[in-house]
């Protein structure tokens, strides 16, 4: 290797393990010199990784899979030796939509089936009035946010392509778009949901952990070819990220970790807001209601850092369900091969034996079985699956 490693990231809380690995010296302790490069769009991160301007990147897990499958862009096989976060997203709605949903809700307001059914009623009554369809913002066509929003609303029969509008918005534009009425709701990672609540323009309706108990969010991504050529660097990167994740997950380090992330050249937002996401204690309404969840964002605990191919299979199933790709044994194999627990285990000197997958734990539909995606998908009424 010559020169420092260049690693791209998007300013989001789930880049924590990567940023802390570099800024707290865990990467240097592994003999790595790293230059972190802040980026403005997932397209940029993907392109710069694909053509080698970046050695590694903080990447949306579905983008890593799409890139390996050649969906939406050039085909570049990606390897993910470390999982940068489990969960961490939230669905935020405008005060007007929140009031409408709470009026219609029958059941617990944190139960995603109850809110989705309320949404179906709001959608129906808007249609009757001839009002414009509701618009939902998400971050990228191949994003967990896209699939999570779709999964949630479709469970109550709301067709995400027919009954509402789903639009891509860069995360920094989300809050402004909600304020201006350009969107009625959005699904995005931290800290943007909290910022909308603080500004009084949004209510956090759901933590994504209400919808899926365990959802792979971002990965540390490298090109497959690069991983093959630089196994020692990959292993050192994984060890640095594992140590950083351990550091972040220790309660006594929370405020220091939040400070590191808050730096202007990293996330550039208030440390207190970042700390809320790390602790899972979030203000969910402008009036100050606080909700706490032990599953809001998992940086390293509960084995979050170890990539799980079953998660990749679930994301691949969503791509099939929403018509982004056709189901094939080959595609599924390629998708699952992006998540590399073997590289993770090798870096830590673990055998990897006895490591069971934790269930995805979706609130609707049958238990997910990567061996039978076709069967799994037939249980969902709303689908764009190519015939």
């Amino acid at each position: 290797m010559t020169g420092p490693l260049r690693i791209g990231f998007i300013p989001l809380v789930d880049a924590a393990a990567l940023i802390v690995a570099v800024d707290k010296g865990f990467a240097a302790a592994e003999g790595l010199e790293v230059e972190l490069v802040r980026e403005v769009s997932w397209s940029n991160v993907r392109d710069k990784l694909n053509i080698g301007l970046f050695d590694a990147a903080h990447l949306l897990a579905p983008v890593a899979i799409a890139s390996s499958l050649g969906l939406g862009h050039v085909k570049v096989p990606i390897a993910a030796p470390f999982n940068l976060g489990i969960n961490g997203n939230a669905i935020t709605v405008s005060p007007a939509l929140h009031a409408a949903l709470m009026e219609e809700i029958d059941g617990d307001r944190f139960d995603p089936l109850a809110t989705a059914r309320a949404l179906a009623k709001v959608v129906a009554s808007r249609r009757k009035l001839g009002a414009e369809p509701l618009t939902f913002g998400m971050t990228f066509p191949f994003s967990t946010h896209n699939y999570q929003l779709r999964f949630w609303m479709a469970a109550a029969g709301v067709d995400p392509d027919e009954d509402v509008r789903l639009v891509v918005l860069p995360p920094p534009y989300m809050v402004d778009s909600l304020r201006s009425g350009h969107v009625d709701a959005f699904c995005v990672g931290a800290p943007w949901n909290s910022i909308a609540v603080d500004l009084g323009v949004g209510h956090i309706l759901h933590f994504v952990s209400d919808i899926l108990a365990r959802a792979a969010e971002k990965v540390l991504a490298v090109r497959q070819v690069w991983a093959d050529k630089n196994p020692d660097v990959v292993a050192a990167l994984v060890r640095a990220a594992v140590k950083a994740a351990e550091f972040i997950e220790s309660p006594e380090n929370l405020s220091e970790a939040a400070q590191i992330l808050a730096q202007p050249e990293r996330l550039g937002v208030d440390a207190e807001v970042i700390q809320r996401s790390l602790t899972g204690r979030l203000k969910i309404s402008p009036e100050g209601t606080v909700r706490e969840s032990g599953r809001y964002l998992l940086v390293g605990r509960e084995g979050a850092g170890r990539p799980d191919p079953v998660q990749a299979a679930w994301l691949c199933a969503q791509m099939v369900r929403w018509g982004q790709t056709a189901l094939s044994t080959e595609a599924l194999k390629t998708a699952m091969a992006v998540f590399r627990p073997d590289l993770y285990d090798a870096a830590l000197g673990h055998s990897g034996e006895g490591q069971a997958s934790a269930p995805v734990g979706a609130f609707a539909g049958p238990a997910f079985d990567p061996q039978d995606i076709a069967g799994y998908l037939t249980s969902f009424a709303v689908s764009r699956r190519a015939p």
Partner: protein
Amino acid sequence: MSADQSPKIVIVDESPVRAAILEEGLREAGFTEVVHIREMQSLLARIYAVDPDIILIDLENPSRDVLEAMFQVSRAVKRPIAMFVDQSDSASIQASVEAGVSAYIVDGLKKERIKPILDLCVSRFNAFAKLQEELERTKSQLEDRKIIEKAKGILMKVKGLTEDEAYVLLRSTAMREKKKIGEIAQSIITASEMLK
């Protein structure tokens, strides 16, 4: 679009200067239908209204992700849009990414028509970057000059030197310490402020 018609080009750029440089270059090269969109909020609506053959966007513009969605949800657009650079064109994509330009091309536009446009964009983007660099350099040179003037004043006052002697002292110190004259001047100013 018929073969001899000029393709309709949209430039999405928040920098009016760069957009102007690009637009001028395209017009000089005979591409007459060029529209500049600066407003990001209603980007998609504007693009649908113009219905371009080619969309050029600054790589540092977060709205790139919005464009990526356009060619995913082709049901929402009149024509599918694809990124120009295909698998075989990794040299082109590298050159354009390095220059900071990204191009989206409506499916069906011939490759030999696209190539000169993209090449032109890359060279114009590079020219703009160079211009920015020069501007920065001039600015820092001006800044240096101000600092040197101030340091000379301090030396003249404290050591009773003439202006020429003060400058010679600054320069010789800089040469001896292998530093820029501006840096030496700055340390004199800092030191004199500390000793106040």
